[in-house]
């Protein structure tokens, strides 16, 4: 069936015409709402490029149905810049040169935002870096991304 889901994206309630109930949130965001900052990498949950926030927690939009987030607040990379945490993370990525081709960057930024929302700068560093291992990058070798994550974490402390 096609029905119109109701949720907010980046603090604005979306006004969608009916969409298939089997549609992935990733496709709704990119192709119906034109929010192409959210990337499709693998479509199997393995790369993290499609990470968005649902009620401030990171989720893989390729493995989430749009209709399953009805009533929730979705945040994409386009909306995160307006938030203090988002702006700090993005600045840290820029300062550390942690983005090369940039395809993985929105996913990393969203994953990091979720961690910082969840526990601020608390928690041990090893756990913190482990918690970013679900995002793949084929360019940077991760060193600059780890530095950017660390910098962002200090910035919200």
């Amino acid at each position, binding site marked *: 069936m096609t029905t119109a889901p109701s949720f907010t994206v980046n603090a604005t309630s979306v006004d969608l015409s009916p969409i298939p109930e089997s549609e992935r949130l990733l496709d709704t965001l990119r192709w119906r709402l034109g929010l192409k900052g959210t990337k499709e990498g693998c479509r199997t949950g393995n790369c993290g490029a499609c990470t968005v926030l649902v009620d401030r927690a990171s989720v893989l939009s390729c493995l989430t149905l749009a209709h399953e987030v009805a009533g929730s607040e979705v945040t994409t990379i386009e909306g995160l810049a307006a938030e203090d945490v988002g702006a700090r993370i993005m600045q840290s990525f820029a300062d550390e040169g942690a983005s090369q081709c940039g395809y993985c960057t929105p996913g990393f930024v969203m*994953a990091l935002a979720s961690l910082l929302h969840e526990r601020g700068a608390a928690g041990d560093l090893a756990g913190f870096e482990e918690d970013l291992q679900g995002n793949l990058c084929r360019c940077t070798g991760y060193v600059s991304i780890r530095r950017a994550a660390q910098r962002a974490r200090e910035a919200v402390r």
Partner: protein
Amino acid sequence: MAPFDLVHPRSTDEALAELRTASPEGVAVLAGGTDLLLDIDRARIAPRRVVSLRYLPWKFLEWSGDSLTIGSTLPLRALEVEPRIRQRIPGLWEAVRAVGSVALRHRATLGGNLVRSAPTSDLSPILLALDAEVEVVGPHGSRWTPVDAFLSDSRRPRLAFGELVRAVRIPEARPSAYHWQRVRPVNDISQVGVAVARSPSEGYYRIAVGDVLPRPVRILPAEEALRSRPPTDDEVRSAAELAGKLSPFATDRRGTEEYRRHIVAVLARRALLAIRTAAPRGPAP
């Protein structure tokens, strides 16, 4: 991907009624969707109707003294960020952390993992070591089954069509550990997984091994080798060797049988040493 209708029952009765009106091939149950949506994408199944458990009141975590009951649809991440689980059932915490990424665990559930019953599950071994029980609800009410009986040898759980898993109970918080080996630390399937636990009330040990066929199992002779309280170094060594020798491993593209036997003995020894003298931690809630 074949389209389907998505329904959102609001109660257990409504959910069971949805299943009653459908045929087994025509309907599927959705919790976090991390296994189900891939199965549909890969055309392993083609349900016309998908029943979402999202609005069922099953996302709970309940301590009762030393026993913990976990709602089947609670996202795994909630287990990870609950400090009492890390303190009092550390093996469960380690096993949950071994499943995919944080973003995956924000949706993936314990119920989905159990019903999926993958031989490679990182959660089944620790649930075996903790003597966990599964609550199944169906048209005839509710029943509790030991995880060992729930996991069958056919790669499908003992769950009849029309039944749902409502909760999982861990009867006793135990010093425990889960150690695994894989090529990549995250989003890779474990080559072996070893779960160990010690009952603080009775003193006995449980040793369960995953990534074996057709399903994770306890290795009873290895458990029995741990006779002394606490077990001696020699007993720990022979228990670990028995776990390596007796696990029903096979060779596949992720590792040879020989490699797995070796690694499991190493991991079992480390895991047993980690819990041998650990006191049951944390105050009773």
